[in-house]
């Protein structure tokens, strides 16, 4: 049993901040905090990423009428070595802080841990945030931003943005009811330009574990959203689910396909990054629950745990996925 269930964890408030490409995408209307260029009024991209976290967290605290003194514990993560953006941001936050790394799955990982802290450590308010920035991620994992290489058809684009959530025990409209911690899966897939398909087996495994533990199927959810599988990975996951005779009924989607217009924006196969699933969750998914259009949503945040050095040593890419379930609670 790897699924943890919660009875008293509610979303107290949430917020996000994004870059220009995300603002121009299909979810643009949900993003009230958006910057018009990727530098976000700062001098380096690393500072820009921290600025995005700062905007997202202060937006969240403001909406929840909270201050940093109300936060008992914070979890955060990003894609940069040593979780630099989160750790450097946390020095200004001045609350007990744990940085987490699960590549792009960090969003569900941070929110899940925050839920554990609320339910089992009886903490009143726990903050979870993640961020990613296309320029810092390119530099970390690939080539310089202005390097003229022809990117493959299977590439995904890292979302520039940050999202934050405060979880607490005070009853509210959205509850966090379950958290499935995934296994790390390596299926000898080593194409770093195709992380979408690389992460599918991990997403599938976590989804099946969640269904089995909770004794549920797609029928019990209004929507099952994966983190950043790209359109190729999305098709592959649908294929695997259909093979197991699951009825999808248009209930499967992907955050990376929701945040961008895959056909008209220059983002190749879809969006990716820690911010991708986080930003879509706090904007679109929470809105679907709050507006009573949906009752129960499962987010499966997927992460490719590659490091460029080991990849160059010809080893495959291990991947992981964590699932977190949100439900609307009617008063």
């Amino acid at each position, binding site marked *: 049993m790897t699924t943890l269930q919660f009875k008293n964890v509610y979303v107290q408030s949430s917020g996000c901040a994004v870059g220009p490409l995300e603002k121009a995408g299909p979810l643009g209307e949900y993003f009230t905090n958006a910057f018009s260029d990727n530098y976000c009024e700062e*001098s*380096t991209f*690393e500072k820009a990423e921290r600025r995005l976290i700062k905007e997202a967290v202060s937006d969240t605290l403001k909406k929840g009428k909270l201050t940093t003194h109300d936060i008992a514990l914070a979890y955060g993560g990003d894609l940069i070595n040593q979780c630099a953006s989160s750790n450097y941001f946390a020095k200004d936050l001045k609350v007990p802080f744990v940085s987490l790394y699960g590549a792009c799955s960090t969003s569900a990982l941070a929110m899940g841990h925050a839920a554990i802290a609320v339910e089992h450590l009886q903490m009143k308010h726990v903050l979870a945030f993640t961020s990613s920035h296309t320029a810092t991620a390119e*530099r970390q994992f690939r*080539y*310089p*931003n*202005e*390097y*003229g*290489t*022809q*990117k493959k*058809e*299977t590439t995904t684009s890292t979302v520039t943005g940050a999202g934050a959530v405060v979880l607490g025990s005070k009853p509210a409209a959205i509850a966090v009811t379950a958290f499935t911690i995934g296994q790390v*899966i390596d*299926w*000898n*897939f080593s194409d770093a330009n195709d992380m979408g*398909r690389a992460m*599918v*087996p991990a997403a*599938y*495994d976590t989804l099946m574990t969640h269904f089995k533990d909770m004794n549920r199927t797609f029928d019990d959810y209004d929507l099952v959203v994966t983190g950043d599988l790209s359109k*190729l*990975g999305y*098709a*592959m996951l649908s*294929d*695997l689910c259909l*093979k197991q005779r699951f009825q999808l009924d248009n209930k499967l989607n992907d955050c990376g396909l929701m945040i961008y217009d895959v056909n008209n924006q220059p983002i190749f*196969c879809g969006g990716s990054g820690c911010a991708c699933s986080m930003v879509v969750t706090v904007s679109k998914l929470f809105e679907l629950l709050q507006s009573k259009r949906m009752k129960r949503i499962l987010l499966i945040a997927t992460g490719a745990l590659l490091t460029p050095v080991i990849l160059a040593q010809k080893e495959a890419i291990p991947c992981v996925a964590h699932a977190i379930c949100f439900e609307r609670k009617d008063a």
Partner: protein
Amino acid sequence: MNEIHLKKVAERHEPKRHKLRNALLAFVFGGLLAVIGQFAANFLVEQFQMKADESVTVVVLAVILITALCTGLGIYDNLAQWVGAGLFIPISGFANSLASEALESKSEGLIMGIGSNMFKLAGSVLTYGIVAAIVFSAIRYGVSLL
């Protein structure tokens, strides 16, 4: 989950690779670049009475300068996505790898940033260029002794 089964499913979702289109575009654009270079070299010879080999050097320098400018202005990477090897193989690819890496590491300072990172991508071209030069000149020398 079975690895072979997964690989089979993954194969079904292999995207269309535009290899032929990319090769054609690279051929046409790379060729066009060479033709323009040749015209420029001829122009220098005729108008400024330069020697043929000097004019080639000037053209190469001009390509490097234009590439570095385009890299800084953020035009180069968009163009390279479109024409690929047409820009990557000529000297423009080498110039872009230096300029882009220098831009990227600017924030880390002149010595540890730009100085030590600038040849990160271009370094292997230099290393193997020199190795190849030694090997081939040794072969040439060996042949000349026969």
